[in-house]
């Protein structure tokens, strides 16, 4: 019996099928948000309010001719899109959404001590795959885009990891599920009996959330940090030579990563999929959609930075802030 439940969990809900369809929704939501901010309507005529637009794009790309340029290193070039698509998808299994075992249970499909570290590791691996993909595409713009991806990784990886570990330190566990449990318990305790300590923890986590959001914009290659695929500078950067199925996978991989990032953000800072009255699924969707809207908003509000500005800015401000934040966390925990 439990094997059947596990299979359904992995393949249908909250696993593969659910995440993929949610990915399509997130793509629509993000495009629509950006369009509205830019005084346009965005996709409109494909399904209700254009909600099927991402699906149409995906299918169209899947049936398009698939070109491998002669100058590219074919094996790596063809493998990278699969990797870029699969990595965030695998990591998304570790995010608590909704369990089939109980209406109010949100056990992830897989959970173990240290899965937070695994998720962060997979995100880094993803960036490395992207670097290889650009480098091996046999195009000058692809190569420039790839080096930029590597540079960006240097910039955002450190603060991102530092900040992501701060809730883990407070919760005393590296399991995402346990962090969510700690957050829920802590929040309920705070509501029952407000304390200065609880307030400070909340504030410190809020700072962490801000740093984390900025790093995510870079991780997701959203504006103002999309220099690795800057259209006006280096065409589409590392993606320039990809077409057909490979482009479809890259495109979807991007939005799976967005779902993963929003899910991680929710789990680490916003109390995960828990909330009053309604089941976790609703709260997961509400909170991650909110995160996506916020990120799309931010990406529409700024001009693109230059790569050197990102690197120096990240090390000057973000890393300092992240270190201060971790120190504050340690102080609150009573370690220092």
């Amino acid at each position, binding site marked *: 019996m439990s094997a059947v439940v596990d299979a359904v969990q992995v393949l249908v809900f909250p696993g593969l099928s659910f995440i993929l369809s949610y990915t399509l929704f997130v793509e629509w939501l993000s495009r629509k948000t950006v369009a509205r*901010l*830019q*005084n*346009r309507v965005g996709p409109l005529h494909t399904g209700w309010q254009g909600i099927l637009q991402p699906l149409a794009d995906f299918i169209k790309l899947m049936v398009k001719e698939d070109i491998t340029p002669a100058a590219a290193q074919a094996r790596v070039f063809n493998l990278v899109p699969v990797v870029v698509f699969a990595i965030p998808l695998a990591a998304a299994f570790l995010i608590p959404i909704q369990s089939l075992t109980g209406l109010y249970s949100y056990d992830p499909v897989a959970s173990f001590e240290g899965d937070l570290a695994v998720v962060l590791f997979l995100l880094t691996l993803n960036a490395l795959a992207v670097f290889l993909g650009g480098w091996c595409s046999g195009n*000058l713009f692809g190569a*420039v885009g790839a080096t930029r991806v590597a540079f960006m990784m240097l910039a955002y990886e450190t603060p991102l990891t530092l900040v992501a570990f701060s809730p883990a330190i407070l919760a005393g566990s590296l399991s995402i599920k346990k962090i969510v449990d700690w957050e829920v318990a802590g929040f309920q305790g705070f509501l029952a009996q407000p304390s200065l300590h609880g307030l400070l923890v909340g504030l410190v986590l809020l700072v962490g959330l801000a740093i984390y959001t900025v790093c995510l914009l870079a991780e997701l290659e959203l*504006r*103002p940090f*999309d*220099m690795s695929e*800057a*259209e*006006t*500078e*280096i*065409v589409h950067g590392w993606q320039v030579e990809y077409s057909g199925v490979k482009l479809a996978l890259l495109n979807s991989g991007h939005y799976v990563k967005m779902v993963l990032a929003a899910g991680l953000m929710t789990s680490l800072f916003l109390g995960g999929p828990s909330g009053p009255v309604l089941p976790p699924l609703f709260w997961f969707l509400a909170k991650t959609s909110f995160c996506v809207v916020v990120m799309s908003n931010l990406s*529409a*509000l*700024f*001009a*693109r*930075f*230059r*790569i*050197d*500005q990102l690197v120096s800015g990240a090390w000057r401000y973000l890393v300092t802030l992240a270190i201060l934040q971790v120190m504050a966390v340690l102080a609150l925990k009573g370690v220092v």
Partner: protein
Amino acid sequence: MSERQFVIPIGPQHPALKEPESFYFTVDGEVVVDVEPHIGYNHRGIEKAMESRTYIQNLYLVERICGICSNAHQTAYVGSVEAVGGIEVPERAQYIRVFMQELERLHSHLLWLGVAAHEIGFDTLFYYVWRDRELVMDLLEEVSGNRVNYAMATIGGVRRDLNPDNFPRWRKAISKVQERTEYYIKVASTEPTILERAVGVGYLGKGDMERLSGVGPNARCSGVPCDIRKINPYLVYDKLDFEHIVVDNGDVFGQVLVRALEVLESCKILQQVMDEIPEGEIRTKFNPLGRIPEGEAVYLVEAQRGELIHYTISNGRNMPYRHKVRSPTLGNIPSLVERLKGSYIADIPIILAGIDPCFSCTDRMLFYDEGKDRSWVWTEEDLRKYRREWFKE
């Protein structure tokens, strides 16, 4: 070229260039060491074609030298022909020409502000500016009947009159544009990401700019006063009250500033034209096949992108013996190359866009029209057949 340097070709098809030109950048890491412009992908040689067309036919030809500064080219062309032929232009017509010229400047500068925002990745601003540009396009369409190639000027005057009944509505639209531009200036001068990408980027000082004979906003942002409307007035610009916008920032931010402030000045001029336009004829008669007496004349116009020169030589026939056009972009390329050296790859698009390049003006194509062969119509069936045949090969 050392081992660490490599060459990046940008263009002829590149998203940062809306037109087919290419630049070969020698870069060292992310820094540009040398630039070699390759222009001519748009060379049509209109100059040669003009020698075999009548003066009136040439009107439509010069307009299509460039779709963005079509009116500037036309104004300069009719100006030079009228100067050769000694044809008087009624004052009302001169006012209308100024009106068109300034409307065109509005649309072109707004277009540029949008494109510049797009080049630094600020698409939201691009969409906002282009939304407001549509207000100007509506005005242009209402005045001339066309959105892009207006066909307003003709030898001896203009072809369409302004209807004073519409003035209150136009005034409202223009003040709206003005208000919006003021807001964009505020955004551009306070938004930190824009400042990061614009201030100090592509700097060129006054001395270098003068040495390289730069023109237009590109030169005025480096402190060279070169607005032809002020220093060499034509039409009725000497009767109108507007500022000579010169700043000495010398960088991309200065270019943004000059253009944005010029938009405001253009709004001022447009309002003045509507206040002061005299009654009267809008053109003196000119026979479409008419001859222009022997002679030559130079006519300078301040197009949106800078000083535009048309030089006509007539040998007494109804076609020009020689007509020379030099568009502002060609004059700006030497200073552009100088601006690009030492900049970052990421700054190439914005510096390129900074001079508001218009290569279709720059490389005029030689062309010739037989007037036959033009009206063939393809049916859908023909098209299908053609496609099938083509694919078979």
